[in-house]
């Protein structure tokens, strides 16, 4: 049945088949982003949804990192989404700080820090 599929379907079936430990009909690999990355992005999207549910259940929604995370989601409405998300999470001040803050970077800028 797989040899009658188009390339995208065959690749999806191939990916699924490898995931199940089976070997299906081999086709020329696709270079199309949706073929290559849809399942990965879908998985990450569900991870994000589950993370937000988890934070809500734990009552940590006031954490500045979570608040910045919510703000960064707005970057998805941009045309340069990766750049926009990274920008929203960044320190946008211009001058060097007087003293290096202790500890590692947290991943989200805390304005009052």
């Amino acid at each position, binding site marked *: 049945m797989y040899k009658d599929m188009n390339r995208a379907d065959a690749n999806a079936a191939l990916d699924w088949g490898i995931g199940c430990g089976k070997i299906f009909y081999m086709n020329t690999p696709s270079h199309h982003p949706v073929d*290559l*990355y849809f399942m*990965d992005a879908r998985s990450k999207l569900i991870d994000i949804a589950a993370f937000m549910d988890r934070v809500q259940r734990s009552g940590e929604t006031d954490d500045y990192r979570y608040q910045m995370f919510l703000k960064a989601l707005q970057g998805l409405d941009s045309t340069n989404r*990766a750049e926009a998300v*990274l*920008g929203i999470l960044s*320190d946008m001040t211009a001058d060097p700080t007087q*003293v*290096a803050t202790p500890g590692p*970077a947290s991943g989200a800028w805390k304005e009052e820090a």
Partner: protein
Amino acid sequence: MRYIEPHAHMVTRTTNDYQSLAMAGCKAVCEPAFWAGFDRSTVGGFRDYFMQLTEYEPRRAEKFFLKHYSWICINPKEAEDIGFAREVIALIPEFLQKSNVLGVGEIGLNKNSVNEVKIFQEQVEIAVKHDQLILVHTPHLEDKLKGTKLILEMLQSHSGVRPERVLIDHVEEHTVRMVVDAGFWAGITLYPESKCTPPRAVDMLEQYGSTDRIWMNSACDWGVSDPMALPKAIMELRKRGFDDAAIDRFVYRNPVRFLGQCPKFDLTESDAV
């Protein structure tokens, strides 16, 4: 496929990793001086580390037919104590004479503090004075954008800095354009979590790879990192339809062109595949 690992902290890795790199096609490993995971308490601690980078690691790599090069500096994370940092800086000229040292690095900023800025500028001065290549670390996560802007301002305001002899590392989507537009080299670091994944790296190569001033590295160290990140990125490039010549440019010829500006780097673009 041949490639160069232009940024790896091999002192933190096992000998098995050298073996894996060699078996994957790596021809040379370049190791910048960096933070050990803890602050060193004496200048002697740095001297020992610089000896390790210039004497011991090349021998460890050689067992697997790998060339090993290093960079010397005090990293920004240990720059907050200015007096101590200056004592370490005083060691640098001696080690720049070593046969495997390519330049001054990875200098840069970590938390974008006033003292980090001072020590960065002083090390840029050393590099210019000794006509050395410069490798720059940009800060992590939320500090990267501001730090990269500060670094670019400082480098561009120094009349002795030649952008083509400076690589600014750990660029991401929000910093890569400003680096390449300013004429500097850009390094993309492949980290499982905190920096860049292979698909994102290939996105940037698609957009900025034509500048020929860009490379990828694993920056593998003692943290969550992967010395096999570059072979994985090569696979990603293949998935995206890049041919062997284009991949060779990104992972071998580009690093050779930048690093070859130092006469001690003795691989050439035409070396055997």
